């Protein structure tokens, strides 16, 4: 595996020698999800290396077309793990994007998105208003907008942060100088929670599940005010320095065992930005943290559940996590885990990729969908809201009664016990 975990915030190294090392053997043809749909060389790892060479050597101009092709990569790292020559194609693609941002600037809509993610609450209100307008049934929109609405989940009534604040106001959480605390009866551990934008804006339920599970394990959770993890910026070839500085300011002073997140994408960005304990404590995925402390007494689910698990790229190939979530699921009384054909194949989501290349993303996702449905499982479980979004939308469009759920939902239900279904 390539070593981007140690990479600096901005990897501006010239990777030309690495790109030149690609033997163009073609082994990436067998694994690249984009190539499997598109069948074009430039969608492929070796094609990306060639485009990079062209750009760096001044043989290709920074054009919109090139930007489009540079964008056509999920950064899923499947080719990197498979490549016999160990070519860091993900780094090459990122460096190409960076170079293109450098020469051409960021597209306006991305600028708006990034600014929005920093704005937090007011951005969300704008989103809600836009959503209400867009989802009005009589309106006819161009295909692209329709696709977007398919991909994005319905927005909850308020953000997770707003819900947390309300809970604090009602005395359900403690508050000290803007930092919230979810206390445990007998405190055995103390962690900080990074919930990320996707949970904040789309999946607040996952945030509540996190807190419930931690409470069940006697873990005190500290929740400082927070913004974006920097992942969308890094993937777009934009520096994440500002995000990093903010995160550092919010998290470094907290005296905790670990900074835990339940979003694989946030987790990999945070680990990249803050290797080791440079954030005061190690960054951990919630599945890593839970397997390290154990699940304790787990009353179990209301009924038997046939589940299958999808490995997020950001967990499997960026953080090396694949056994932890399975261990957790298998430990839940009532869960039958049925492995799908290739659980670590990318679902095609890849954050804003699913909006920018919505058709392609959907087609890549269809393969995932087939694998999921072939298991006969009643739900597909994963540990990344970005994958949840992609897979949920695929299931919805397909009109099948299979659900996509975050692993924490299963655990939260299992702690609540057979007699206490917790809705959702």
């Amino acid at each position, binding site marked *: 595996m390539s070593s981007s975990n140690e990479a600096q915030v901005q990897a501006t190294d010239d990777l030309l020698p690495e790109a*030149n090392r690609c*033997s*163009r*053997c073609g*082994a990436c043809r067998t694994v690249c999800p984009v190539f499997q749909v598109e069948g074009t060389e430039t969608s492929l790892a070796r094609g990306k290396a*060639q485009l990079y060479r062209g750009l760096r050597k001044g043989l290709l101009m920074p054009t919109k077309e090139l930007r489009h092709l540079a964008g056509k990569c999920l950064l899923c790292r499947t080719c990197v793990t498979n490549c*016999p*020559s160990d070519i860091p194609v993900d780094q090459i693609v990122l460096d190409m994007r960076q170079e293109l941002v450098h020469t051409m600037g960021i597209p306006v809509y991305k600028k708006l998105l990034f600014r929005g993610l920093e704005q937090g609450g007011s951005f969300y209100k704008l989103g809600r208003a836009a959503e209400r307008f867009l989802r009005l049934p009589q309106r006819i929109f161009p295909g692209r907008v329709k696709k977007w609405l398919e991909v994005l989940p319905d927005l909850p009534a308020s953000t997770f942060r707003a819900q947390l604040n309300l809970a604090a106001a009602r005395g359900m959480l403690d508050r000290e100088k803007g930092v919230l605390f979810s206390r445990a009866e007998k405190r055995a551990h103390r962690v900080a929670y990074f919930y990320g934008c996707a949970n904040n804006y789309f999946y607040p339920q996952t945030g509540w599940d996190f807190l419930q599970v931690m409470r069940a394990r006697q873990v005190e959770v500290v929740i400082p005010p927070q913004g974006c993890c920097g992942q969308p910026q890094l993937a777009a070839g934009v520096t994440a320095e500002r995000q990093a500085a903010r995160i550092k300011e919010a998290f470094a002073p907290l005296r905790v065992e670990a900074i835990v997140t339940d979003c694989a994408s946030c987790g990999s960005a945070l680990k990249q930005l803050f290797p080791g304990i440079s954030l005061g404590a190690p960054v951990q995925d919630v599945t890593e943290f839970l397997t390290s402390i154990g699940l304790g007494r787990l009353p179990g689910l209301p009924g038997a559940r046939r589940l299958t698990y999808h490995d997020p790229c950001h967990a499997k190939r960026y953080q090396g996590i694949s056994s932890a979530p399975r261990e957790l699921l298998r430990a839940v009384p009532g869960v039958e885990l049925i492995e799908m054909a290739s659980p670590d194949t990318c679902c095609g989501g890849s954050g804003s990729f699913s909006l920018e290349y919505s058709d392609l993303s959907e087609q890549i996702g269809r393969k995932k969908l087939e694998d999921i449905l072939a298991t006969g499982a009643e739900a597909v479980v994963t540990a990344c809201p970005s994958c949840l979004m992609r897979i949920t939308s695929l299931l919805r469009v397909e009109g099948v009664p299979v659900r996509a759920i975050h692993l924490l939902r299963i655990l939260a239900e299992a702690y609540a016990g057979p007699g206490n279904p917790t809705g959702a």
Partner: protein
Amino acid sequence: MSSPKNEFIARVREVVGPRYVDTRTEELFGYSYDASFGCTKGTPVLPAVIVKPANKEEISKLMQLATAYRIPVVPRGAGSNNSGGTLPVDGCMVLETNRLNRILELDKRNLTVRVQPGVITGQLHRVVEAEGLFYPPDPASLDFCTIGGNLAECAGGPRGVKYGVTRDYVLQLEAVLADGTVIRTGTQTIKGVTGYDLTRLLVGSEGTLAIFTEALLRLIPLPQAHHTILAVYDDIRAAADSVGAIIAGGIVPACLEFMDRVLIKCVEEYAHIGLPTEAEAVLLLDLDGHPAAIADEALAVEKICRGLSVRDLHSAADEEQRQQLWAARRAAFPAIVRLRPNVLTEDVVVPRDKFADMVMQAQGIGEKYQLLVGMAGHAGDGNLHVEILTDENDEVEMARVQQAVLEILQTAVELNGTIAGEHGVGRLKAPYLGLEIKKEVMATMQAIKQALDPLGLLNPGKFI
């Protein structure tokens, strides 16, 4: 705007539909290379257009257009060849046959399979093996290369020693000639002598005579059992000598592969399967057939190897371990660039009793020119891949590399061998053809080319 070229492209769009035609510079860049040495140097030559037809009718029309407009055509499969066989020439049309990717008919009574050229070799293996049948040609690139490319290069692989190469499994070909004529060569029968053997002529013609659109391939029953042995040597000569001794001993393994120290190290670093990285050479050997016969042969092989001071002999414990060993062997070529930026693979073949001589002389040539050389080979059929590890952007070293290449090829010819075993001639080997092929033979080949492709449109600059 309406230059002949643009007119040509417009008409190509009408034939295959705009979706399957690309002229964007960026996309053309992605078709400016294949897996051959030297692709990262200088400014790449770009094709004028990339076309992806769906069937032989479209291909026939495309060739008619190419003839009318005098546009050179470069057929392309997965672009995994190592000889520059798919490198574009200026202004050409790259004609990719990957959309013709169906297995049309598996005939279990006659042991044949009818396939289109875009079928991936490994996929064909899986399909026929599920029916207890066997298509032996197994280029190391089988996970991604296409049957069309295999036919055009007459690809071989480790199993060549016992089962032969692509050529030995082709009964019939359907192909489109330069002027668009569709021909069908060969017979559906196992034998047949009506007319010249055009099938054999076209197999290995590297896209210079015709474009394949279909092939009827011969299958054999899948061997019952396998036994894989890894023989480890402290002395490279002893390993190479063992190859000759095993063959001379009347044993025909399904595969008999040779790897030297450099290769072992790179493969181990990629695959982590516990290869002995301090050994000088290993032989990887697969015996197949009836379990009782295999057991006998395994004993005989071990005896021969012991006689030649083998250090260790290991047998693959189970199918999984066996698959691991062979998968690792297949990754050898790309894995080798871990040491230096690029690798130039020479693909010489010598009579098998000369295999050890070839190995030792190639090693000597590498030392003479101070080059890092790794060696791997389908040793059982005398095919040695001399991998020169270098940096193609280093002019000084490249001069030495050129010298070494020439000497390696000369050595092969002197040992009564050939300069190209299975990777083709393409653009890279074309300048050296004279080392081996006599003038009058060359003239005969040129006459054939002239007869089939008088305008020289099919894959110019390659092969002859």
